[in-house]
């Protein structure tokens, strides 16, 4: 809120020591503590944080509901068996929130409204659904009714005005009297909080496309701060993937500069993964070998087209996929640094010309092979020989005359020759023009 009626939403410990409290008007607060630093609240950012929290919660249960501006409600009764008990879920969720950099309070109760109230007025409380659990609500202040905007503020003022300060005392009032004083909403709310009437919620749906950004406090070109920001982005991505029980093998990192067009990095892993460390390693290698055109202001990470993964059951005999993962991991690391073309396997190719009888291949993929009695080493380019007098011919000639159709015709006689140092070479005589001798390989 701006203008003369603006109020403080929260104050840190230092401000509270000066007598500034949440709810004080800005004018009063500045009068009490002129050195106060004020920060405007940003509803868009708050909404984004709430979304992140909801995405995180989706990993536990599909029944997640947003309660703007600051609460996420999750229904866990249906998934308690999987996690054992509610405290396990709370512990895991708290850890996940810390990783996301969110400071949260929590509470658990048999109805969503009760949990919401307890999180605000008795954080950390876990209420088991035993008969008579509603008693814990009795001690809560009447102001709790405003949580989630269930009851208008004027009604709460009316109730406190007659000296009713807790839910318990409100509960004890005659129902007809409350209903007559335009406080029907109070009765409805109480009934829902106590679980006497159902309280349906709108469920949150996971966004199909992932896109988050971080604005850096100061533009930078250094790799370390960029990686630090990337770590946050990848954590968010991993959270989103875990929520959808999905994995992805690629995402796009945009580094936005002030004047230059954004630098884009395609982060490609060899196999779909949820592990943020893998992307971080790839990003580290990519950034290390790139010179950025200008300082980076905003980092944006986008991903889509994810793959649903099969949850692995705990295996009695260790993890059989571990070997594969290590192999993929190495491949993607090397490719991130040197480029995909520079890391390859080999395959044979049906062509008689020795330089065309092989191809680069995708590592790990099997192709039909055409073995041949050939040297283990082939020179990328045949090397001219001055003379062959010192060589002893051991086998040959093998005539290779082919390739007239694609302009790279060869017309050669190949021999296996023994060099003076006793190594075996594969040499040929070019019959096409000059009848010169060349070395083409070594029987290494």
């Amino acid at each position, binding site marked *: 809120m701006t203008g003369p009626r603006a109020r403080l939403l929260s104050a840190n410990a230092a401000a509270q020591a000066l007598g500034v409290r949440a709810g004080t008007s800005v004018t009063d607060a500045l009068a009490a503590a002129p050195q106060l630093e004020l920060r405007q609240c940003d509803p868009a950012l708050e909404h984004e944080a709430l979304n992140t929290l909801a995405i995180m919660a989706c990993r536990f249960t599909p029944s997640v509901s947003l309660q703007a501006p600051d609460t996420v409600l999750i229904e866990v009764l249906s998934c308690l068996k999987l996690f054992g008990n509610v405290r396990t879920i709370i512990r895991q969720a708290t850890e996940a929130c810390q990783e996301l950099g969110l400071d949260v309070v929590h509470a658990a109760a048999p109805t969503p409204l009760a949990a919401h109230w307890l999180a605000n007025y008795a954080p950390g409380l876990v209420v088991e659904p035993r008969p008579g659990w509603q008693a814990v609500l009795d001690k809560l202040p009447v102001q709790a009714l405003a949580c989630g905007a269930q009851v208008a503020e004027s009604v709460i003022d009316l109730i406190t005005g007659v000296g009713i300060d807790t839910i318990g005392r409100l509960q004890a009032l005659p129902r007809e009297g409350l209903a007559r004083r335009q406080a029907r909403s109070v009765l409805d709310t109480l009934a829902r909080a106590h679980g006497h009437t159902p309280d349906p919620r709108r469920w949150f749906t996971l966004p199909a496309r992932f896109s988050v950004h971080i604005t850096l406090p100061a533009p930078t070109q250094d790799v370390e701060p960029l990686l630090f920001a990337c770590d946050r982005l990848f954590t968010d991505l991993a959270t989103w993937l875990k929520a959808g029980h999905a994995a992805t093998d690629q995402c796009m990192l945009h580094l936005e500069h002030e004047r230059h067009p954004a630098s884009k990095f395609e982060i490609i892993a060899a196999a779909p993964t949820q592990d943020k460390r893998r992307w971080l390693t790839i990003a580290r290698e990519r950034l290390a070998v790139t010179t950025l055109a200008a300082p980076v202001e905003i980092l944006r990470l986008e991903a889509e087209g994810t793959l649903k993964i099969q949850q692995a059951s705990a295996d009695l005999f260790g993890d059989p996929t571990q*070997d594969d993962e290590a192999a993929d991991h190495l491949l993607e690391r090397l490719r991130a640094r040197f480029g995909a073309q520079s*890391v390859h396997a080999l*395959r*044979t190719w049906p062509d008689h010309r020795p330089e065309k009888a092989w191809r680069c291949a995708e590592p790990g993929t099997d192709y039909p092979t055409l073995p041949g009695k050939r040297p283990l080493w082939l020179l990328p380019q045949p090397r001219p020989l001055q003379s062959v007098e010192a060589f002893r011919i051991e086998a040959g000639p093998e005539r290779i005359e082919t390739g007239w159709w694609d302009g790279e015709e060869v017309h050669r006689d190949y021999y296996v020759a023994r060099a003076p*140092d006793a190594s075996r070479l594969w040499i040929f005589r070019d019959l096409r023009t000059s009848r010169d001798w060349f070395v083409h390989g070594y029987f*290494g």
Partner: protein
Amino acid sequence: MPAANIVSTLIEAMPPGLVWTGRRMAASSASGWSTGFAALDAELPDRGWPRGTIIELIAARPGIGELGLLQPMLRQTPRKRWVSWISPPMLPYAPALAEAGIPLSRMMVVDTRDNAASLWACRQALGSRACHTVLAWLSRIDTSGLRRLQLAAETSGTPLFLFRPEHAAVQASPAALRLQLEANPDGLRVRILKRRGPPTADVVHLNLNAHTHAVDRADPAGPAASGHYTRCV
């Protein structure tokens, strides 16, 4: 009877374990991978290529038969593991590798830009524990670089075959095994410069043809046939 023979007869007559002869090699806890050449295995402390160390192969130039020496080892590449070729000096030729029964899809050839990048790739390949073996051709490497690689090899238990030029033979090296290779009309002459055991001046002659050609292909999975050899002292 020469004196040496009398001594060895005497020793043999005694109960085993009473006399320790200097020629005996330290028994290593981990057994090595057979080189595929019985003559060479007999000279190596681990009865084969040691695991988790640098193995230096020193030769005047590439192409004299060093790949032939490794063929039996490469043939045993398991599925799901790589053989990394870090900046090879020429093209490892696919038809010949296929002929030797080496699985082409598990060969991972890495073309690096410079020596520093090759070193980095070596460390990654060793550290990943995803490699059956790593073959590397480095244009130069100092002793501290060698020590770092040796440490990486030890930690991961992966052997690193380092192909080095002849002048490297005089450089100190933490490698557990250093072999000097020379071509020879019927194969390869291997001089053991360093091993974990008593020094030896023996030269092992290996016949590579027994492995490069169809002789072995009938039974590629079985134990590699012993190379034909003669020993000179």
